[in-house]
């Protein structure tokens, strides 16, 4: 079988950042100079722009397929392209030392790819390629052979739960909406993904936008919506471009617009760009934002399924939720529910990041033990440090300590230890991370993203942050932990929307599992992880200092003195613990204690 030569260059945000576009240009240039252009292989030799394949840390990843044989290279830079073309493409000899190693396969082999199955394989900018993997078949089948209530039943039977955070059963939500009498209904795809440390939805939209659109078509048909919106972050320009292009292609093919697939069903999908407000991921705030208002949440009930956009019944689902729908319709509810745990079916896409060897986008069956995710898929902790905790659910979630390493990762499992699935961000923390600082970081985030409408969140998160800041700066007082706990619980229980209700979770969970770290800060004025500068003393190890003077230059209060080429010294009474010297020293001679 001779399929010619195919070169795939990873061009997700990660790939582009690592120089993917330059690598691609190099390939085009090299093929030209090597004369591949004039050879018969010319037409078959094409350069793919593939979306994120998950292993961003190894970018630029390049697949070279010769005669059906795929070789995957990692860390490719433009200057390496020439050798690849010469030796692999023309010389038919793969360059073994640049190929990905075993860990790359371990990373992939422990995953179950459904939503991500086609990511990195098909060109997201080509509708033909999506059609080539049975794209829009599910929509056609659904619209032409099934009644809306049958569609809802299949989705109910599949056990699919919302991937945007709450985990509400999708089919049930759809049935609530469909039960309303209304002249107009809306379907909205939530692609706001404001969670710091999560990029699942971005990758799916960038890598396979048509799957999301197809899911929306099926959902719209099920609930009877004729207008849809995708609410997407403006900070994701590539995703926005690809989505717009995909919508245009789908319209041209008649998958969107009037009388789809020869039925009486019509659907128009519009794109709305978020303008930079995390709270707009919350359903009612998102609706307010589409209506052109400040994104301030509204009290529920009434729920959007009954009274949503412009007061009409509205369904809001997450990107990944929609991306699951075409497969469920194609392969059936039983197939879908065949993997996963008892109450959480199917797979979950997770952004695995932090202090871990293999960071990237992964997809695992629901219920996979935490330790398999971290140590098998993730390859363990980076730099041989000790595992401390894993933060899930972003600012709404919590920190899970070592003792729960066997925990099955699904909605119930995570909730049972005071965290949550959230949208699927998973940040691994090691011994050098301070839990009080982490908790402060998240509070800083939620506090600055609070819409300011309701009292507990507007003032409560501010007070929580102030107490945490005090503790990390050595001003903690006896009773602060209890005060934090009380206030955190009250903010959680009386805030208006999910932001305020979940903002205290990082505080509550870190106090629960890492109380000793709080105590060390408050009672002993020490930061065990050596993160909180104000609690550290900086000094210079004479035996390691070469006297370059970089530290003294960096110090803004002139606390460092020393002759050139002689060991320097820090005057601790002048030091303001900013840590600049620590960053400036190239010889690791500055220590903190």
């Amino acid at each position, binding site marked *: 079988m001779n399929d010619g030569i195919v070169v795939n260059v990873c061009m997700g*945000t*990660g790939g*582009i*950042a*690592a120089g993917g576009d330059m690598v691609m240009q190099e390939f085009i240039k090299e093929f030209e100079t090597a004369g591949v252009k004039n050879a018969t292989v010319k037409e078959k030799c094409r350069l793919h722009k593939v979306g994120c394949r998950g*292993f*961003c*840390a190894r*970018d630029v990843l390049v697949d070279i397929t010769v005669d059906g044989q795929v070789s995957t290279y990692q860390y490719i830079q433009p200057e390496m392209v020439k050798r690849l073309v010469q030796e692999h493409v023309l010389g038919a000899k793969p360059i073994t030392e640049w190929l990905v190693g075993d860990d790359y396969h371990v990373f992939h082999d422990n995953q179950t790819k459904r939503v991500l199955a086609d990511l990195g394989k098909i060109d997201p900018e080509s509708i033909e390629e999506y059609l080539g993997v049975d794209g829009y078949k599910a929509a056609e089948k659904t619209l032409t052979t099934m009644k809306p209530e049958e569609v809802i039943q299949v989705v109910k039977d599949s056990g699919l739960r919302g991937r945007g955070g709450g985990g509400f059963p999708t089919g049930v939500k759809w049935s609530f909406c469909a039960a309303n009498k209304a002249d107009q209904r809306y379907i909205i795809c939530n692609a706001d*993904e*404001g*969670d*710091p*440390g*999560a*990029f699942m939805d*971005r*990758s799916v939209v960038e890598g396979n936008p048509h799957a999301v659109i197809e899911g929306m078509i099926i959902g719209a048909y099920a609930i009877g919506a004729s207008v849809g919106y995708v609410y997407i972050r*403006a*900070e*994701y*320009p590539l995703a926005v471009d690809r989505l717009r292009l995909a919508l245009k292609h789908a319209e041209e093919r008649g998958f969107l617009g009037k009388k789809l697939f020869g039925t009486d069903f019509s659907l128009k999908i519009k794109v*709305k*760009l*978020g*303008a*930079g*407000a*995390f709270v707009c991921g919350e359903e009612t705030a998102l609706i307010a*934002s*589409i*209506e*052109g*208002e*400040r*994104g*301030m949440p509204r009290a529920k009930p009434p729920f959007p399924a009954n009274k949503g956009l412009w007061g009409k019944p509205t369904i809001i689902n997450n990107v990944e939720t929609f991306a699951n729908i075409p497969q469920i319709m194609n392969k059936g509810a039983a197939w879908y529910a065949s993997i996963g745990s008892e109450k959480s079916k199917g797979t979950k896409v997770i*952004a695995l*990041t*932090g*202090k871990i060897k293999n*960071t*990237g986008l992964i997809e695992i069956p629901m219920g996979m033990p935490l330790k398999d995710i971290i140590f098998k898929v993730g390859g363990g902790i980076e730099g041989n440090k000790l595992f401390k905790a894993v*933060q899930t659910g*972003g600012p709404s979630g919590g920190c899970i300590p070592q003792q729960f390493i066997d925990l099955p990762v699904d909605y119930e499992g995570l909730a049972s230890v005071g965290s949550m699935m959230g949208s699927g*961000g998973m*940040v691994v*923390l090691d011994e050098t*991370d301070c839990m009080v600082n*982490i908790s402060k*970081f*998240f509070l800083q*985030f939620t506090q600055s*993203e609070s*819409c300011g409408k309701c009292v507990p969140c507007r003032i409560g998160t501010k007070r929580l942050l102030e107490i945490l800041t005090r503790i990390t700066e050595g001003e903690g007082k006896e009773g602060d932990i209890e005060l934090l706990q009380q206030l955190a619980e009250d903010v959680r229980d009386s805030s208006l929307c999910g932001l305020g209700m979940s903002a205290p979770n990082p505080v509550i969970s870190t106090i629960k599992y890492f109380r000793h770290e709080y105590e060390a800060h408050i009672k002993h004025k020490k930061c065990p992880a050596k993160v909180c500068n104000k609690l550290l003393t900086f000094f210079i190890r004479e035996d390691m200092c070469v006297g370059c003077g970089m530290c003294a230059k960096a110090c803004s209060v002139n606390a460092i003195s020393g002759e050139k080429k002689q060991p320097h010294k820090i005057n601790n009474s002048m030091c303001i613990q*900013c*840590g*600049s010297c620590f*960053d400036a020293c190239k010889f690791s001679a500055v220590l903190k204690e």
Partner: protein
Amino acid sequence: MDKQMTETLEAIYSRCVANEDNIITVLQEIQHEFGYIQEEAVNWFSARTNIPPSKYYGVITFYSQFHQKPRGKNIVTVCCGTVCHVKGAPRIISKVREDLKLKDDQDTTRDMAFTLEHVNCVGACSIAPVVLVNEKVFGKQTPSKIVNNLKAYKDKP
């Protein structure tokens, strides 16, 4: 208001009416055209649409994307998402501030060459910490790397 500005606003108005757009889109377009949002543009739109300026003002100050002052020629955006945070974003910010000689309450350099901004996760956590200069993404940054990367933007006229 000069004629050119009125024409630009009129064009935005017709476009947005045709697309049934909302205030947020209108403001996004205004900012796209002028770089920031001026009060007189809002007043013009308010009169044209019969929507009180307070609505526009509320939206402008709610969403962090909108700016009421002109920004620098180059926008340096430091990601402050979780991953970038644990991998050292705070130290990158203080270094950039120092390098660009920005005072605490200042985000744009005197010569309008740079504006420093924060963002909560650009979705490239695998290569954290991340800094964007204009549209270009720099991954795996350190305080010294980013200073180096900024050099290229400083000399350009």
